[in-house]
């Protein structure tokens, strides 16, 4: 049953992508991609509520399915579905009808590679899945073929490929370290590495972990390896930005979380977690500095992604049931919220015909519905109650207090406040400044507004009401990760 669902879930976007290449009719491609995304989301939800706690493997152990993976798949499925809805409206505004089938083929292929990552049981194959996401999404970033988008695509592929090659080196060192324990030839699964970790040479293990952390950290966009992120996230079409930010970053973060749980089993002391926490705090710092002085709308959202990946890194770094639960919850909230923000930014950018915050004025007057939803999203993403991100960020802070990393908690709290002020100040200028800007050129289609509603509603609901079973779910996920760290 689960195996069949997993198969349907991964094959749906692959088939849709191939279909787009064959059929080439824009309207058909839109429909194919949307149907695939509905299948993925439906399967992800069913998989989430299925019974049974143990992680299981399929297909000769190449596929692993555990709580952490299921949760990441849900985030990916949600963003894929919302972005597919949004893309129908948004891509029609671009006047690229003749290349639209190519866009949807790449879009579905991108979703396919992102769904593969969390399911890979072999650490080497996981690396390849992550690398594949880069290769496909580069062309989505450069889809508009403008000077800026090609520049962003080039920087994206070069920086991320170089960074992620460090993760490959780290993976090799993991295998090498494990070969002293498990023999020269073995299947490098997450479980195998975890069982070998206590008997591996600690220095080799630490070096391998640091390489992997920096490598996948580059993909996640942790500072100081984040330099590609603002370019790539701001220059792609808005639905692509949402997928990059809301889904792709999580897929790579999952790898880091799994490696952390592996090194937890060895006696390495606090170093691995401290490094992760420092990277998280650094990401928050860089994000805060660039958010305050930001001039581009989508770059503002991109730096906010760096911020939230910093929060996730802190959550996994603090660890313990509370830290892991907070990080997983934050993952979902960020996926929904960042999709909402990029959707709004895309409509506003198209309507005003500019990327500059300074040229956007009176959003609420010109675009009442989109403007209201976007503003609610902005309040939510800065971590203000009553939205769900407030709860998850608060949980991460509490996890930090429990572990005794007080400095990190203080840094996080202060920077979140700085970001709150800086981020909303930009929105104050766009919404309530009196100076008159050029009036918007065109309205927004229903296809674009519907996904914004769908993203905003759960954020509010989950901020007010937190179901008990969700907490139980996170507790099991934390247990599967070893529940390491203090807490």
């Amino acid at each position, binding site marked *: 049953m689960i195996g069949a669902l997993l198969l349907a879930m991964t094959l749906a976007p692959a088939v849709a992508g191939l279909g787009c290449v064959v059929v080439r009719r824009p309207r058909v491609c839109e429909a194919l991609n949307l149907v695939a995304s509905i299948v993925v989301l439906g399967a992800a939800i069913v998989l989430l509520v299925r019974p049974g706690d143990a992680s299981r493997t399929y297909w000769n152990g190449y596929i692993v399915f555990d709580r952490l993976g299921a949760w990441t798949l849900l985030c990916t499925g949600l963003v894929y579905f919302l972005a597919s809805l949004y893309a129908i409206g948004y891509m029609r505004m671009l006047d690229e009808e003749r290349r639209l089938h190519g866009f949807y083929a790449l879009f579905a292929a991108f979703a396919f590679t992102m769904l593969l990552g969390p399911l890979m049981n072999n650490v080497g194959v996981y690396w390849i899945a992550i690398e594949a996401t880069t290769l496909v999404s580069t062309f989505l970033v450069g889809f508009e073929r403008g000077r800026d988008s*090609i520049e962003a695509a080039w920087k994206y592929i070069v920086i991320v490929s170089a960074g992620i090659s460090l993760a490959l080196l780290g993976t090799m060192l993991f*295998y090498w370290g494990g070969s002293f324990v498990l023999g020269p030839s073995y299947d*490098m699964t997450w479980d195998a590495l975890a069982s070998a970790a206590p008997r591996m040479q600690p220095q080799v293990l630490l070096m391998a972990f640091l390489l992997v952390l920096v490598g996948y950290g580059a993909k996640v966009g942790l500072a100081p390896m984040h330099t590609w992120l603002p370019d790539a996230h701001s220059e792609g079409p808005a639905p692509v930005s949402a997928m990059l930010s809301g889904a792709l970053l999580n897929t790579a973060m999952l790898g880091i979380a799994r490696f952390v749980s592996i090194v937890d089993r060895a006696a390495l002391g606090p170093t691995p977690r401290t490094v992760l926490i420092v990277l998280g705090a650094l990401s928050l710092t860089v994000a805060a500095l660039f958010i305050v002085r930001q001039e*581009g709308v989508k770059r503002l959202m991109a730096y906010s992604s760096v911020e939230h990946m910093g929060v996730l890194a802190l959550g996994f770094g603090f660890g313990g049931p509370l830290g892991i639960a907070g990080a997983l919850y934050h993952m979902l909230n960020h996926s929904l919220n960042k999709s909402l923000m990029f959707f709004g930014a895309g409509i506003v950018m198209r309507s005003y015909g500019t990327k500059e915050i300074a040229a956007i004025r009176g959003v609420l007057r010109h675009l009442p519905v989109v403007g209201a939803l976007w503003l609610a999203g902005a309040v939510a993403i800065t971590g203000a109650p009553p939205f769900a991100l407030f709860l998850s960020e608060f949980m991460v802070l509490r996890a930090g207090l429990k572990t005794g990393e007080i400095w990190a908690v203080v840094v996080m709290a202060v920077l979140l406040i700085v970001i709150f002020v800086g981020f909303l100040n930009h929105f104050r200028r766009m919404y309530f400044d009196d100076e008159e800007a050029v009036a918007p050129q065109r309205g927004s289609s229903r296809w674009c507004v519907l996904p914004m509603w769908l993203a905003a509603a759960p954020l509010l609901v989950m901020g007010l009401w937190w179901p008990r079973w969700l907490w139980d779910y996170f507790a099991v996920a934390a247990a599967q990760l070893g529940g390491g760290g203090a807490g």
Partner: protein
Amino acid sequence: MLVANLTPLAASLFSLLAILSLVLTFVMLGSRWLMDYLRAFTAQSWLIAALSAAVGYYGNYPELYLVAILTLVFRGLLLPYLLLRIIRRLNINREIHETLQPSSALVAGAGAVIFAFIVAQHLGALMGLAGTVAVLALTIMLAMKLIGFLMLAARHEAISQILGLLVLENGIFLGSQILVPGMPLLIELVILFDLLVVVVSLGVLVRYLLAHVGSTSSRDLKRLVG
């Protein structure tokens, strides 16, 4: 463990091939002509193929013969051909504005090798492998990594950056042949294929760069800042 019980002949053969690969990296570092980079990379790929075959022979890993043949075909012939096509399309044949002169780059590269050696020796001693070919493999793996990053940072031409990425990968592949020859075949094959896709993707992007930016130098890619 393969490296712990090698005959002296095998150990010297592995060392020779590995060191020659490192020397070829320095050839890339010390030149500013794009064709030199390409020739050095090609020769390096052949050496790695030979190393795979040698490890397969002495370590009794028959599947490494297949890896050797595929390395020769993919890395030694197909990739250089693709890169040659990219270079032909460009209207330049050398690096013009290096951040680092080739002479300084060579010194920096030597520093990288020394650093890599210190790290490798430390790890080797901890693992009880001091003085074996494993230390050399680790040294070269780390040194090629550092030199690859040096090339990425100090060179501006698109093709130099592609070759920098390939040097990063070559270093890992070379080291892994000696350190973990028993690694499942599937992973090695997929990584080879992945490299091919990377180079094809980069080649397409170079074409876009030419068409939409009008330059393939990263010096001209600085519109997106802040």
